């Protein structure tokens, strides 16, 4: 094990070499996974249109019920926390939606799951944006370049995720979700107000990532459309990868669970607030 007093030193791999590796991986992503997901979402949009026509999306299914009950305890805890939270940590990044628009009315079934997912992705984007802005303003002390890259890349991926879910909503004739999860947002804002360094920011991001991953895992059981399941299944591992890197950076074991839990999944009732 490395000596605790050892000073960090420059690595043998150069920035250019690593950037080239990252560029190759990004190209693979653009060539392979992104088109596949786009196709999947397009097919799901078509399926939603068909189901809307026949009024098949109305009513709560057993799967929807399962998602709602999966996170009841956590939801209650966060609601309690919200009750005592009146703070807003960031004056530079809006949470809750730039336009103040409410969630699309009367969403049910898969479309409500898509709206919840979009609101969580928006919250992740908000969190990373606020963190990057705080770092840029010098509020977090010295921020290593690798941390900046992590935050900007993770934020970009969350924007991709939000766009995918919003494509499903707009494809079904609904409006985009531009708000952040209304129950979780005040909790995250309250936590962000206490962030003073990179470690605090990483801990906050970990909270968001683990919640998102758990919600997608729970959502897999709640979605009725196979295409919707495929979309959630393609995103859950990415959120957990973000979480693993954050754990590693925080000096915690990066893969703590042999089976990923759903205890921190957000319920659909978040959108009823």
């Amino acid at each position, binding site marked *: 094990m490395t000596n605790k007093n050892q000073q960090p030193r420059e690595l043998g791999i150069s920035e250019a070499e690593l950037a080239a590796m990252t560029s190759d991986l990004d190209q693979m992503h653009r060539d392979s996974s992104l088109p596949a997901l786009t196709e999947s979402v397009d097919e799901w949009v078509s399926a939603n249109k068909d189901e809307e026509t026949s009024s098949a999306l109305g009513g709560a299914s057993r799967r929807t019920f399962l998602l709602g009950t999966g996170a009841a305890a956590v939801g209650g805890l966060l609601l309690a926390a919200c009750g005592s939270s009146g703070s807003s940590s960031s004056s530079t990044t809006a949470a809750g939606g730039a336009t103040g628009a409410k969630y699309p009315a009367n969403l049910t079934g898969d479309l409500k799951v898509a709206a919840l997912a979009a609101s969580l992705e928006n919250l992740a984007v908000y969190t990373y944006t606020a963190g990057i802005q705080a770092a840029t303003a010098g509020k977090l002390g010295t921020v290593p370049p690798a941390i900046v*890259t992590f935050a900007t890349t*993770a934020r970009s991926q969350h924007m991709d995720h939000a766009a995918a879910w919003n494509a499903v909503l707009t494809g079904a004739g609904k409006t985009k979700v531009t708000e952040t999860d209304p129950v979780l947002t005040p909790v995250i804002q309250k936590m962000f107000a206490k962030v003073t360094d990179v470690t605090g920011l990483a801990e906050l991001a970990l909270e968001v990532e683990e919640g998102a991953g758990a919600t997608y895992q729970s959502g*897999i059981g709640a979605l009725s459309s196979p295409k919707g399941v495929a979309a959630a299944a393609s995103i859950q591992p990415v959120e957990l990868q973000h979480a693993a890197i954050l754990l590693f950076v925080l000096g915690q074991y990066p893969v703590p*669970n*042999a089976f990923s839990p759903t*205890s921190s999944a957000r319920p659909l009732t978040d959108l009823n607030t």
Partner: protein
Amino acid sequence: MTPQPKGLAEIDEHQLLDLVEESADLHADSMRGIAEPLEEMVELEHERRLEQPDPDETSAFTRARDAQLTKAFGGKMLVAAGAGAALVGLLSTDAFASAPTNVQILQTAASIENLAVATYGVALTLPFIGGSEANPVVKTFATMTMSQHQQHGQAFNTAIARLGGTKQTNPDPALLAVVNQAKPGLTSAGPVVALALELEQGAAETYVANVSALTDNNAQAVTASIMGVEAQHAAILRAVQALVEGNDASAITLPPPVASLPAAAGSVGFPDSFFPTNQARPATEGAVK
């Protein structure tokens, strides 16, 4: 030299062991969550087996898997194994179309886990992975990951046995060929990490593909709880690989020396916004014949 960010301190070996113990506690919590889906899955499958196979369900499953297989045939591991033609033949058989698909999927998943356990076991016999020359973080990671794959295999096999199926105790045959081909070249950490990454990525992609193809809700839940874990293994291995390929394996510490890492290191572990499935293994590849 860039200073270490505030709050990030390196951890000694005793602290690492403490973290592993904490991780075990967390794992015990997650195991409680997985028990219920497994039990429900067993009950539902027993009910299903009393009925005739549903032709529509079978057809839908076959179409879904065919779509994944089309992508899988482009995967480099399958090409390396030279098994593409054999699998195309298998796909066209009636046996595939009418098989109890959830059991086959579980058997294939178990076979992938069996291979992973065996591969990490071999790796840990190497002095630079599990011996005195080994980096402690790499050794701990290999040991913990092997244990997690053992648990995955046990979970899949428990479900298979209770469904009345035959436990899969053998490794995935196509992937075994890949591992055997790689063995002579495992003379340093780089090739070992590359092989482990290939297996982890393949496992994660297989489970992502299976989650959207499975017809049984509880089989789906079990698989979904494992796919992200394999993806996490892959993320850490990608980060380790970047350091190993940079000839600076000593930088693999917990936490890593974040302040001195190149900027691009921050994203090397998670290259995809959407997890791909082009290396997913065919559903029947590891099924008991």
